[in-house]
Every structure is written in structure tokens, then in C-alpha cells.
């Protein structure tokens, strides 16, 4: 089995837990190419169990990840979820008919 297949199989349960979890832990900002004063990755004391479960699956790719690494990754995953919540607050910021940009181009 490839590592990707192993990951998908192992992560499926965690993802379903993740999606069903309403409460998010304290988070950090998502990694960004912007060199900015805001921290991109930093360990936090509280992360959600669902994010931790997904983070643990990353050992499929790198078995040497430490428990501290897992906590840091989980914090980042929680941060991603927080970003998702922010761009569609309470699921009401976007309407059913708001289409995504499927091919981004700048109008002339």
C-alpha cells in the first residue's frame, strides 16, 4: 500500500470526527508566504482532539515527528479551521449562488 493510501485510510475516521467537532482550540495563523510579524507556527497549550488526531496521521509520512511536533501541527490545523470559519461566518457570509473563481484571471 502506498503511503498516500495508508494516510487516506487512516485519516478518514479522524476527518469525520474533525468535521463534526464544533469547538475549536486556540489557534495560530495559517502558514503564509508573507514575512509578517504574526507568528506562523507556534505551539499552543490547547488544541482540539480532532486536529490532534489528524496531526497524528502525519507520522505516516514522518515517523520521527515528536509529540511536541504533533501538538504544533495540530495547532496549525486548528488555525486552518478557524480561517475557514472566518471566511464564511456562521455559514451566512456566502450565499448559495456565490460562485467560486474556478479559473482565476484579471479582467482587462
Amino acid at each position, binding site marked *: 500500500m502506498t503511503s498516500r493510501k495508508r494516510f487516506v485510510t487512516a485519516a478518514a475516521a479522524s476527518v469525520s470526527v474533525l468535521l463534526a467537532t464544533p469547538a475549536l482550540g486556540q489557534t495560530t495563523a*495559517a*502558514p503564509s508566504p508573507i514575512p509578517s510579524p504574526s507568528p506562523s507556527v507556534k505551539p499552543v497549550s490547547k488544541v482540539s482532539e480532532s486536529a490532534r488526531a489528524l496531526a497524528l496521521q502525519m507520522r505516516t509520512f514522518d515517523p520521527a515527528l515528536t509529540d511536541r511536533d504533533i501538538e504544533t501541527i495540530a495547532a496549525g490545523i486548528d488555525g486552518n479551521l478557524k480561517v*475557514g470559519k472566518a471566511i464564511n461566518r456562521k455559514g451566512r457570509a456566502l450565499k448559495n449562488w456565490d460562485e467560486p473563481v474556478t479559473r*482565476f484571471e484579471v479582467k*482587462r
Partner: protein
Amino acid sequence: MTSEEIAFTEAVALGRMIARRKISSLELTDLYLARLEKYGSTYGAVVTIMHDRARREAKEADTEVAAGRARGPLHGVPYGVKDLLAAIGAPTTWGAAPYRDQVFDYDASVVKKLRAAGAVLLAKLAMVELAGGFGYNDADASFTGPGRTPWNREFWSGGSSSGPATGVAAGLVGFAIGSETNGSIMNPSGACGVTGLRPTYGRVSRHGAMALMWTSDKLGPICRSARDAETVLSVIAGSDSNDATSVDAPFLTIRNRRPKIGVLRHGAIKSQPAVVKNFEASLAVLGEYCDVVADVALPDGPYGDVFGAIFNGECAAAFRDLIESGRSRELQSKDDRLGGYQVYGSLAVDYVDGMRQRAILNQRVAHAFDPYDAIVYPNSSTVAVPVGVPFDKAYPQYPGGPDMGSPGNLAGLPSVGVPNGFGNHHLPTGLAFMGRAWGEFQLTQIAKAYQSRTSFHTQHPTLIETGRGS
């Protein structure tokens, strides 16, 4: 002119000197090759110096000049590229240890265009690993070590186009090509006190460039003047069958009227005092030849979150192989070693919602800013960050005004950064202009006029030599 003066001369002036046979391209190339050898590692600016290719191209340029066949304003002018652009004759490392032996057997489209214009490729220049995609938080985020601003090597060059900005500021190249996904041209241009131009998305082909975020990656010039940046952009712009997003779009210009400039509301708040002072002085200069409208507000976001949601999905896909291989552990920055797993753990629905919000936000930005030829604001709220200090710990008291990187890059709008003075530790401060889509030359018109009234872009640092690896 002394060799030092020649090294810091504008690219278009160098082109004129070559065309008039006051200096040969080979002499100029050898001058820059020597400076790259002498100072490149001291400032963490270089990955590979391409002696053989550079000297060969320079000789060809000189042969053509002797035969009366100069190809244009950059004929014979030596330059460098960020090491995320493929070029025959050198590895293309993307600044990252897992890719340090990666070799492509073709030239990126911008390299081909510059070659066709007679320019001479000197070097692959240093960059933040993976263009910062995995979330670095300090200067030591490249396998070549921290980039250092030539104004004071104890301070970061900015990133992720660290080598191009350092190389131009230190007079190691005639001009350089960098890339920006969100800040990677504008930020190092400010930290190094040079002129950076982020083109409209689609203006320049990315074929042969590392992908980080397909819907935001752009290539653009980093130069010693707005005039140079305009000239280089005119050479590298245009459609390319190898990049479906690239187009031939006319350059908007300002004719027979004063430029209209909007000053970003709260643009200079929570900034270092020197940044504020220099910004106010810049506005006074702009007022001499522009209609300046105060207090133009950035429409409500959330730009950063939307950018982040889209970025996460595209970055994770772009580097899926690296992440799944476990080789992230080889990256230089400890944050980068884990950051890939974090973006990998983002949700598809957030990516799609990000692209839905992007359409809405871009309309808001266009509506608010379209009356202006440029929106102006400080390029950064601080001078360069000290090497060895995490970014978030360097100047926490000066977070600055609204983030203009995310709205500008989400909408694919062009931007130009120019030096506008000096601040703490005699490090450069900068002024940023953001314009309409396809309005790059409107921005360079404004920036050229600013530079004709000021001399910050003509000042250059005194370099030191410490030897390799120090």
C-alpha cells in the same frame, strides 16, 4: 567612472554604455562575477554563479554590438534570477535542501525573453526555501543561510526574493528577477532599499518557475530604479503558450493630466517613527505633481483569511510529494519542517469558500480603488528585522496599518515599491504604490517622477567582506 560606480549604475544606463562601446558586456560581466564571488556569500545572496554561461553570453552580446546589432536597452546587461527559475547550466534549488540537486534542461520563459533581448544571465540568486510556503518565522529559512540586507548584515534582507533584492542593492547584478505570491517582491525591496515591481497577475509567464500558489504566483523585476523596472517588465511581459494564464495586455498610462493618488486610511499607523516621518515627506513630494486624496479606506475583508484558505489548498497540492515523502524534515527552518503538514490538513471546502469570497472581495477592491491611479502607503511599518530574532518578536509594538498584500494579491493587482529614506540603524524605509490591473506603467510613471525629485534610489551601502559561510 570607478568600477564601484559602474556596479551601482542603473541597468538602462549600463545598456547605453555597452551600446556606445564605453564598456563591453564582457568587462561588465567580469566585474559583476568578481563582486558576486567577493560579496555573495557574505550577504547570503547567491546559490550558483554561472561563470561559463555568463561569459559566453557576454561575448555573444559584444560580437553583436561590434556588428551594429544591439537588441534593445538590456543588450549585454548582466542580471540574476531568483533560484526558483529554471536555467540551463545550474541547479534550480527552490532555496530548499530537498531540491538542491534538481536540474532542468530548459530555460524559464522569462530567461528566454531576457536572452532574446541580449541580457546576460550571471547567477541563480538565493531565496527563502519554497518561497516561504511552509510558514517560516525567522531569517534562517534557506539552505544557503539567512539573506542579509547590504545596509547592515546583522539585519534580514527580507524575503522570499532575498537574493534578487540583496544582489541589486549590493551592486552584484545589473538587475534581477524575483517572484511574489504575497509580499515576496515588495518586502525584500523595502528591506534592501531597491525598486521592486509586482506585475498584474498574467502579465508575465511563469513557465519554468516553481509553483507555490497557481492563482497568485507572479514574476517581476527588482531594480535600482523605476525606470529600470519598467524597462525589464516591458521585455519579460506577454503571452506564452506554456502558461495559459499569461496574456498580451496593453499597458495603461497617464496622459495629459496629473496622476490621482489615494492615501490609504490608517496606512502609517502603528509604524516606527522614522517610517511615519519619511512617509509624510514622501506625500509632500507626491503633492508636487499628483492630486493627492487623503483617507482612502480599504473595504472590509477578511482578506488575510481568504488568502490563507486559498493558499493552504494550493500550497499543499503544489508540494504534496514533498510533504508525503517526509523530507520536510530536511528544510532549514524549524517552522517549515512542520508547516507543510499544517497546510496539508486544510479542508477542501475552505478552499472553495475562499475562492467564492475572492470574487466578492476583488469587486469591492476594484470599486474602491479604481478612481485612483495608485493607492499609496508605507511599504513596511518597520525597517528590516534583525537576523536571529523571530519575526513576531522583532517589532511587536509596530504592527502597522492595513495589510495591503492580501487584497492586492488576491485581486492580482500590480504594485511598485521604492526607497523613501532611512530609519533605525540607517536601514532603508519604503513607499508602496498599488494600482489598477494592467496599470504597471502608471505606477512606474508616478515612481519615476518621485525618483526624479529624490535621491534615495541612488544611494548605496558600503559593503564588507567576511568570506564564505560567515
